[in-house]
């Protein structure tokens, strides 16, 4: 029986390519390693070698054909003794198999069946999956990365990642010099790190959306500019982390946004009164900021709306018992969000002092991982720059972030009259997997009440 020769993927991100040149014609005998064709992508032209021996039956794709999808059949290979009948129709069952294989997400370019990514443990696959075939050891050379940066991972980690469908790019290695080891892949596959395992969750829970395959990699920006038109600023590790985390967060978390205006006139008065009561200096001195009130109000609102104070995992929602609120700190350049843990148990003074201390330590680069990892909610405030309103990217593993705009005097209509009021606009970015629209709205309603009438937090 003839077998299909499929369009190879020359890189992990390749979706389609051009069949630039055939090196064989119908009826040619080929053996393993013979060059069959030249395949061209937007990046390179590569030779495609035979991985089986036999005789070329039919060439199914004409030379020069563009947009040939990865894993589409491009030729048939006849076994020993089979007649090379150029007019024979393509082998229907194997063609269908190839097409089905092409539709499965993340199918690697092999002529033999290769397993689709293993389903996450918590969610059974909707259809019975074929038992994963054993990957051939000799074919596990590290794939070149589309962005040109080499990923350091142990051979075993690569193999396990391939088998479990975990993307190495999404992992932080725990081995020497950040090398990805098997334990990192296992942790991601088990959902130990929700943000990292998220790609897996997508392919399993939404197989009909063809997922990453419709996202084309972005071209390297250097292609668009002359060499002398820019200077290269190498990435530091923080820049890389920001890029990696926020790209994952924005791509994988279904964000939506809720905006509400808060009249902070009363809050400003309370703040002035309280600050006036502070001792001049020494112990017990304090200077409350508007942001301290916002943090307190958010903590109290989170306690009343535990649905918002949650994290997504494939297995279950994590409903956090405490309001651990991250505060975005500008590091010029870069940013970090240290966390005020159990903010609901702390008074304004404690919150104020803690935020100040965290910010100072952040700027001195003295934060420890436990100061900024985790958290149940974040606040990002750009009000001091006069920003009226903005939307923030959710900080995984959290499910929401509140973007705070400037408190400014605005003309508002009150009881049918235009009056001046100090108004602050806030926008919450929500993870729709965790927080539905009305849930988020109810939270913001409570938050608004607390901000507009701080004393109501005492109720």
């Amino acid at each position, binding site marked *: 029986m003839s077998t299909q020769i499929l369009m190879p993927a020359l890189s992990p991100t390749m979706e389609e390519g051009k069949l630039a040149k055939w090196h064989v014609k119908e009826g040619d005998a080929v053996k393993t390693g013979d060059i069959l064709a030249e395949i061209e992508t937007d990046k390179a032209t590569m030779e495609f070698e035979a991985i089986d021996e036999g005789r070329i039956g039919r060439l199914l794709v004409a030379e020069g054909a563009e947009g040939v999808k990865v894993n589409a059949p491009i030729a048939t290979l006849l076994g020993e003794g089979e007649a090379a009948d150029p007019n024979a129709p393509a082998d229907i069952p194997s063609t269908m198999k190839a097409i089905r294989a092409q539709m499965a997400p993340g199918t690697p370019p092999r002529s033999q069946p290769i397993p689709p990514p293993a389903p996450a443990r918590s969610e059974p696959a909707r259809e019975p999956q074929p038992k994963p075939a*054993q990957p051939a*050891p000799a074919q*596990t050379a590290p794939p070149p990365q589309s962005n040109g940066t080499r990923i350091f991972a*142990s*051979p*075993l*980690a690569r193999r396990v990642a391939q088998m479990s469908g975990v993307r190495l790019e999404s992992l932080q290695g725990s081995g020497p*010099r950040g090398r990805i080891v*098997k334990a990192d892949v296992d942790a991601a596959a088990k959902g130990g790190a929700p943000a990292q395992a998220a790609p897996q969750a997508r392919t399993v829970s939404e197989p009909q959306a063809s997922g990453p395959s419709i996202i084309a990699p972005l071209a390297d920006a250097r292609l668009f500019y002359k060499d002398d038109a820019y200077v290269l600023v190498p990435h530091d590790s923080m820049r890389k982390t920001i890029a990696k985390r926020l790209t994952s967060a924005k791509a994988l978390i279904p964000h939506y946004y809720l905006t509400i205006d808060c009249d902070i006139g009363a809050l400003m008065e309370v703040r002035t009164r309280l600050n006036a009561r502070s001792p001049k200096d020494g112990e017990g001195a304090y200077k409350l900021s508007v942001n301290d009130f916002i943090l307190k109000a958010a903590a109290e609102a989170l306690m009343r709306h535990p649905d918002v104070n949650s994290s997504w995992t494939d297995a279950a929602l994590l409903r956090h018992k405490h309001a651990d609120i991250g505060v975005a700190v500008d590091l010029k350049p870069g940013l970090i969000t240290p966390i005020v843990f159990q903010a609901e148990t702390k008074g304004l003074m404690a919150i104020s002092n803690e935020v100040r201390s965290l910010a100072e330590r952040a700027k001195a680069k003295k934060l420890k991982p436990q100061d900024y990892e985790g958290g149940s909610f974040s606040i990002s405030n750009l009000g001091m720059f006069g920003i009226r309103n903005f939307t923030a990217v959710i900080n995984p593993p959290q499910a929401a972030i509140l973007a705070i705009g400037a408190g400014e005097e605005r003309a508002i209509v009150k009881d049918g009259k235009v009056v001046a009021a100090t108004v602050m606009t806030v926008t919450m970015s929500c993870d729709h997997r965790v927080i539905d629209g009305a849930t988020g709205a109810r939270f913001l309603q409570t938050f608004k009440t607390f901000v507009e009438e701080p004393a109501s937090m005492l109720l």
Partner: protein
Amino acid sequence: MAEAFDVVVIGGGPGGYVCAIRCAQLGLKTAVVERENLGGICLNWGCIPTKALLRSSEIWHLLHRLNEFGFSGENFRFDLAKIVERSRKVAGQLTNGVKGLMKKHKITVIDGEAKLKGGGAITVAKNGQATDYSAKHIVLATGARAREFPGLEADGTLVWTYRHAMVPKEFPNKLLVIGSGAIGIEFASFYRTLGAEVTVVEVLDRILPVEDEEISAFAAKQFVKQGMVLKTSTTVTALDKGTNQVTATLKAKDGKTEQITVDRVILAVGIVGNVENVGLAEAGVKVEKTHVVVNQWGETGVAGLWAIGDLVGPPWLAHKAMHEGVIVAERIAGVKGVHPLNTSNVPGCTYCWPQVASVGLTEAKAKETGRKIKVGKFPFIGNGKAIALGEVDGFVKTVFDADNGELLGAHMIGAEVTELIQGYVIARTLEGTEAELQTSIFPHPTLSEMMHEAVLAADSRPLHI
């Protein structure tokens, strides 16, 4: 005022002195307290002097095969005193080497017995004099000693521990070795090779019980061929000492008893931690079954108090203690990215003849984990270098996870395998799979080619068999 250190290590064995060196490298003011000899059991009464003894027995063995290699000679004799003397010299040379290392790293060596006084205070007693020291961190590395049972106590003359067995004054023509772990088997092999009638008693159903079952079986066959008597599933119930002989009562699993009379008995039935007289209980250190309880970082749970090596439990191996010493030193110094010891990456070596070496899971243990496994084996007889050396008894065995290719374990028996095992240790530490081992080029002709073949054999593709 007591002299103050950043770190005081109690015990100058391989765990302790290596920990001290690493501490010093990391800029910590460090002291080592040692009551006897730097280098501990390993250098003075264990690994090293026994290797010197075994080298002598190996030469003795080769002398009897001279014809095979084209030499002639007769009336060979050995001088036991000289063999022992050489072994002691080797130990002495290395102890001096450790002294030099301490000096080089500006580590204070305190002579005497240390006792914890709580809160970072230590007192060291020597000849009735006590000196106080203080340390921010104290690392307990007091090691272990041979285990004894009631009725089976060593007396140093007729009933020996390893310590007496390596400095014999007269050669025991009949020897009983109780316990077939690495220590028991090494002495059994040494004395058997030099001509003693050796009986080994093991309570479990096979010798070298921690090794892979096939290794145990192969070793047993070789030892029996050499004339050793192996009694497995057997215990020693009594030792009746005469003037220069001991009559031992052996009881088999099926209840049958027998008596044998030997010149000397070696006790090698495990070890116990040196947990006495250090003030552990007063300091609040938890001790279970003569071993200090620690977490993965060697922390005892008492602030500033750490423990490493034989004192904290198996595997009781110098290289494991050294590695723990480094981990603890780096944790104390706040080095980033320190990883806890992975005991399944600790190789084990037994220097009997033929040698035994292994790392990772045995085939049986690997099966117990429920994984699908694949096993490869390759015999010494298929290796050119082994044949050229005249060492054709042995084999190499690999155990892989059949799904992801992880090297789960490697087991070797035969000439020089203790020098070979590190190749598989590196593969495990780097998380290599069978693919990398298959594509690695092994030099020809070497014994290491068998390691390659045993990996190929796991995929049913060995080249030379």
